């Protein structure tokens, strides 16, 4: 969890770390990501996008 609190802009609730599912090219994975306990919106950090998500994309992409 980042040091700063993350608040859902809509529900005004503090985000909690929960399992979030990601699908890419027919494969589905989960990882922990800050999620609104009320509406379920997921915050995807730049670190996650440029790190693991980009890594998964590269591994799964065809040549």
């Amino acid at each position, binding site marked *: 969890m980042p040091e700063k609190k993350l608040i859902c802009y809509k529900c005004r609730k503090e985000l909690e770390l929960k399992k979030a599912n990601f699908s890419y090219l027919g494969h589905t994975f989960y990882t922990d990501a800050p999620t609104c306990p009320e509406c379920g919106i997921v915050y995807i950090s730049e670190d996650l996008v440029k790190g693991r998500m980009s890594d998964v994309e590269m591994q799964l992409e*065809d*040549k």
Partner: protein
Amino acid sequence: MEGPRILCKTWSVCPVCMKRLPAERIQIGTEVFLRKTCNEHGIFNSIIWRGLYDINEWVKGSDRLSADNPQCPNGCGLCSDHVQKTCCVLLNITHHCNLQCRFCFEDNCNQGDDPTFEEIKESLVNLIERGKTLVQLSGGEPTVREDLPGIINGAKEAGARYVQLNSNGIRLGEDKEYVRKLADAGLSFVFMQFDGTNDEIYETLRGKPLLEIKKAAIENCSAYNVGVTLVPMIVRDINTHNIGDILRFAISEAPKVRGVHFQPVTFIGRVPENPTDYERITLDELVFEICNQTDDMIKPGDLLPSSCDHPLCGFHGDFMVDQDKLIPLLKRDNPEQQCCCDSSAAEKNREFVARRWQRSPADPNDADLCCGDLYDMEVFLKRIKKYGFTVTAMAFQDAGTMDFSRLRNCSFHVYEKGRFIPFCSYYLTGWTQ
């Protein structure tokens, strides 16, 4: 049965006099042949597809043969009519070999002088595009050279992104210290001839039992974290029945073994006799045998036609090893699958194969990778980097099957005297009459 149907018009050569000839891919029943007529030597039909799957679905508009070019294939050296860029470059560093095989691209083994170390270094500097090139050191058998570590080092210094060694594995199995020197010099991975899981196959194809030395080569390469891809040449009635066992063996040796690269026998260079259609192993037949002999652990849809070369030149499948099984990562019918039949295909292919064939750096904390939930992104990433596995094939052309539409899509080139020459035109040899 329906009459012959022309699927595609192309160009080829007469297998006897090597004269350029118009040619056609014709379908007769379910089978597809390359047909051409030489005024002097007659009609030639060579089977290229047995009709086990739909060839039109497989090829899908990949024929982009432009106007006839009278230089093709004898003046081959990547002219403006060539469609594809270079994916891998092969450099022959010796004519010498420690085997005398029944089939070999190189018909003149052990004849003539080898290039000097300085000549090879000069070639490497000329052929390598810094930070990009995948260079394959080949022969003959490259490991007969004592200066191979220096050559690998020279390739890396010249900027090669990957250095691949094509080897029969004998020296690699016998001489662990030599393998260490190759690894220290920067060897990326090894393509090792591996025709089967029993010695009868080696005795027939290579003249001696070699299975144990191949296993030792895998171990020695593993000791220095050098990935090995097994390369079986598939020959009718000799190892066609062994395809499933080769795959099971390779999977059991992951992550030391990174995949299997099948090469259906090609009738170029040294061959026992001119081929018959019975002896030819077509690409669709190979797909069928892989699936059938693995009890559908691998399915036809897991193997995709080549987009880097012409679809009739090969296929690739990307997998992850899970215990003794393979999990497919690519699906032919996946609508999200990107099409990459553009000019960047060669580069994409190079990165695709290299990220699988190269072993990831040894990590003492990843010993428990056999377990864990593969839906967990972190577990998947660790697992795929260590246990990624490819099943690929390349069907080379000979004087019977030579098809200029395929040739002009070739991304696998031999470097010689300043020229990049498609593999199949470089090695093309005529038949005896």
